[in-house]
């Protein structure tokens, strides 16, 4: 099934970078955006604030570390698939140290020792392999993505080396720690997120612009073309 998804999504992918977002499903995306805003307003935001307000900093940090540690094997797989062996090795060391000395990843002794490689995901691997970002898509609950990065998310989930090892009830801890970390982030960046979702004139367009640009920025390889010279071409090509 995953393979079918990959083929479908990659089949309609576009060149690596185009300045304008490719958004053929804007109408549907805007509908999903409306649902996501409603979910945030009624559930995600209030529950996140309640969580952060009621659970102390130290415990939340440990939960975040636990969730973070469980994502490292996925990073390693992608490091290797991208030929980033140095990062893969560093991340392997980090995972081993934090899982043992750090008590199942609750602590982060590896970071204190300066051990650790780049975070990565299968969307980034596809990018490295020359796959374009495809079309823009806003996913329910997960928010902004592209066809390539959404495919990547799915593959990451399937490829997760820990998945076959984890059985109930342990997988409840892993899932809930990931959700808890997301809630913590929702509050940590509340100012910026609220201003985009609730104060901007067109929050759909702003979320899209911000996602695509930060994603391209983190994937690297942007060239000088991202820096237009408005003195030369003030009104664009509209």
């Amino acid at each position: 099934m995953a393979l079918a998804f990959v083929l479908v999504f990659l089949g309609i992918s576009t060149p690596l970078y185009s300045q304008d977002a490719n958004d053929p499903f804007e109408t549907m995306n805007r509908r999903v955006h409306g649902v996501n805003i409603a979910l945030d307003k009624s559930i995600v935001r209030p529950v996140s604030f309640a969580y952060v307000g009621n659970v102390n900093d130290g415990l939340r940090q440990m939960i975040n570390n636990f969730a973070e540690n469980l994502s490292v094997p996925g990073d390693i797989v992608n490091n290797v698939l991208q030929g980033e062996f140095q990062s893969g090795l560093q991340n392997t060391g980090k995972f081993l140290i934090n899982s043992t000395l750090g008590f199942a990843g609750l602590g982060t002794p590896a970071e204190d020792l300066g051990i650790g490689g780049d975070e990565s995901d299968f969307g980034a691997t596809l990018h490295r392999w020359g796959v374009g970002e495809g079309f823009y898509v806003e996913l329910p609950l997960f928010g902004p993505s592209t066809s390539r990065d959404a495919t990547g998310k799915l593959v990451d989930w399937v490829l997760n080396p820990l998945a076959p090892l984890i059985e109930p009830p342990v997988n409840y801890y892993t899932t809930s720690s990931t959700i808890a970390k997301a809630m913590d982030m929702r509050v940590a960046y509340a100012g910026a997120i609220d201003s985009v979702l609730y104060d901007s004139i067109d929050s759909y367009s702003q979320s899209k612009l911000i996602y695509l640009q930060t994603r391209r920025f983190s994937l690297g390889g942007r060239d000088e073309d991202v820096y237009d010279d408005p003195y030369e071409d003030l009104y664009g090509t509209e």
Partner: protein
Amino acid sequence: MKMFMMTRMRIFMAQNKLPRRAVLSGIVAALLWSGLPAYALTKSAAKTLINQAVDDINAMVASTDDEEIILAEFEKIFERYADVNLIARYALGAEARRATPKQMKKFTRVFKIYMARKYGSRFREFMGSDIIVKDSKKVKSFYKVTAEAKLQNANPFEVEFLVSDKSGKPLFFNIFIEGINMLLSERAEIGALLDKNGGKIDRLITALEATL
């Protein structure tokens, strides 16, 4: 600027035939004739401008907690260091071509307050963070000055200021925060507001003023 360079080249080429004093006064004359911005924007001048802007922001934030004072000060800083006219024109997009000078002036005034409030409150969140200006690099006809903002308990992030002297003096005309292009964001916002107001500039200005 080009004209000035050419003049200077010609003077140098003629150097062998001319007495030194004549050459010197020729250069001086060329400098005067080419007008005030008779210098090229340099790497370090661009960096200095952003350093001053960052210092002003830090000093302002350290001096008061009053939100209204901060936002008013931020507006002044924005005016002093940014090419507000260009940013306003860019945000209005193709519509700026149809705007009358009077509409443009009014829009620019309201837009400036809108920008100062929006980015002023964003910058307030960086409080307690350190913005360090790192490097300056020539890109196309301008300079990109890179700074790093260090937040407490979070990864540092990158801020790039684009600086040009094409307005007549060195000013920044765009900011990229972790790759997010401020000009593009604002063109999308103002474009959306214009659409909501039937493409009418006067109604857009009123609506923008109402958001302040």
